[in-house]
């Protein structure tokens, strides 16, 4: 599957070429995630005219503009709110949200848990690079303990969110996590997430090399991306044996792939059936 779709997949068919090279820093993992997303779209055969990308503010949010689709770059933290309106008004569109750890978990945290609860047919790709890159490298809700940022100059001591555990607990129909170095696996995860009828949450562990990596001596881009692979462990990060552990991100165990998949009713279809029932009852 990978082999064949990779051969027929020309990423340029899905990009606004006139905007390139893109604005991301050298080695930024967001570009790799963007490729995986477009590859998944290609594999699913989604017409880009019917694809709507809704993105928030930050490095993650700016990636949406490069996609040759209907792209909406909205306010900080609110892409899920916009996407909820868009998907309810236009169930014919395939709506994908691109957001970041700060956008989605801090300022947009309320919208995330309610999008999970509602289980509307949306895909939310959260690019987690542990930092607010666009604003110059401040700590985010996923900045691992001990990490240095411009607002944690002697190392972070705040506990982190396990975004996937949060999304699953709030009721998301599909939850998964992947690292950028496993591009085909990330593509598969995103493909399954988009195909899933309901709210799909995908956390992508992406590298911020220029700001976060440099400040934390994590090496240059190749070193950072290779570390993703060497520290992969088949367990859960954030929660080990029922206890929340606040260890540095890369040193803890990571479970990747599909973490939760349920067949809870999709909200949009449920709403439309409910409304049709109301109309039918009025006629009779």
């Amino acid at each position, binding site marked *: 599957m990978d082999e064949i779709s990779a051969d*027929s997949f*020309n990423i340029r068919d899905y990009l606004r070429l006139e*905007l390139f*090279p893109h*604005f991301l820093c050298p080695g930024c993992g967001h570009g790799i995630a963007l490729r995986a997303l477009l590859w998944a779209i290609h594999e699913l055969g989604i017409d880009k005219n019917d694809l709507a990308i809704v993105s928030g503010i930050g490095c993650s949010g700016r990636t949406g503009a490069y996609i040759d689709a209907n792209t909406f770059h909205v306010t900080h933290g609110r892409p899920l709110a916009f996407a909820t309106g868009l998907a309810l008004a236009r169930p014919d569109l395939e709506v994908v949200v691109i957001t970041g750890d700060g956008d989605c978990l801090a300022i947009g945290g309320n919208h995330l848990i309610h999008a999970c609860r509602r289980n509307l047919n949306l895909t939310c790709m959260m690019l987690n690079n542990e930092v607010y890159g666009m604003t110059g490298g401040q700590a985010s809700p996923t900045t691992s303990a001990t990490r240095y940022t411009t607002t944690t100059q002697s190392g972070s001591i705040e506990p982190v969110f396990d975004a996937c555990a949060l999304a699953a607990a709030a009721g998301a129909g599909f939850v998964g996590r992947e690292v*950028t170095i496993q591009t085909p696996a990330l593509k598969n995860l995103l493909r399954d997430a988009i195909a899933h009828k309901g709210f799909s949450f995908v956390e992508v562990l992406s590298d911020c090399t220029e700001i976060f990596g440099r400040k934390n001596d994590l090496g*240059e881009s*190749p070193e950072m991306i*290779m570390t993703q692979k060497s520290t992969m462990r088949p367990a859960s990060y954030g929660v080990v044996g029922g206890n929340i552990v606040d260890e540095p991100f890369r040193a803890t165990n990571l479970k990747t792939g599909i973490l939760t998949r349920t067949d809870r009713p999709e909200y949009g279809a449920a709403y439309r059936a409910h409304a049709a029932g109301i109309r039918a009852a009025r006629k009779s």
Partner: protein
Amino acid sequence: MDMAQKVSAETAPGTTPGATPDTTNVLIVGVGGQGVIMVSRVMARIGQLQGFDVKQSEVHGMAKRGGVVFSHVRFGPTVWSPTIPRGKADILLALEWAEGLRWLNYLKKGSGTFIADTRHIVPPFACLDRTRGAKLGYLAEPPGVVLDQVADGYALDATALASALGNHRVSNTVLLGTLSVVIGFAPEIWQKAIAEMVPPRTVEVNLKAFEAGRRWAAAARENPESAREHTLRKPAVLPELEARDFELRITPEWCKGCDICVKMCPERCLSLNALNIVELTEPDRCTGCRICEWLCPDFAIDVIKTLPETASR
């Protein structure tokens, strides 16, 4: 104008009562992460060490992301305004070539000095504008053309000088070395200010970088023609491929030199050239495995396979 004379110790505060305030304006520009702020703090500190009134004001965003990073440093007997008006900068120091061009209109006509690293960090909006034929086109003005427009100019590949010292990030200090020759003041004062401002473990390499920049500028003053020798970025030439069932296509203008593909290639067939752009240096070894394509954050590599008829779905 000889800047070394202009702000020499004789014009220090109090020595020339009633004289017109003589302010030196240094505008420092660059892109995010290059060290514009460090350079401006060194400059401001030197102003203070010389007993001048100093004003420094800065904007730091991420120029690479379409924002602007610049810092105004003004020093003299008495300085009131913190910002330099357009056309009033005595010195424009650009850590990045396009940023230098962007701010050129701030330089004093007829007397200003232009100092710039010739290295290109292509800002996306410069590139955007280039495709639309707007005036900010990146490669429109080669160094020679720019130097001809200014009263005094220094265009050097500071990044190359810094890399030769083992750390490309000290290119800003190389430019400080050049600036020190233009402005004057004793080298010891510059060294003191640099040592104060840089991380302790990088003091040594920064001082070496400062020296390299000084030496280059001194030589350039001796022989102005040598200052106009510079390396222009040329488009990378695509290697010729033999007829195979796949082709590795590089888009050099999209490559940002992050090195991921080079390090992740199992066959070690890619490398970065002198311009920090990826090249397929060992085409025979390439298997078309696509790892470079998948992991390139900039979509600068495409592995294009000829699809056999039977493989189509």
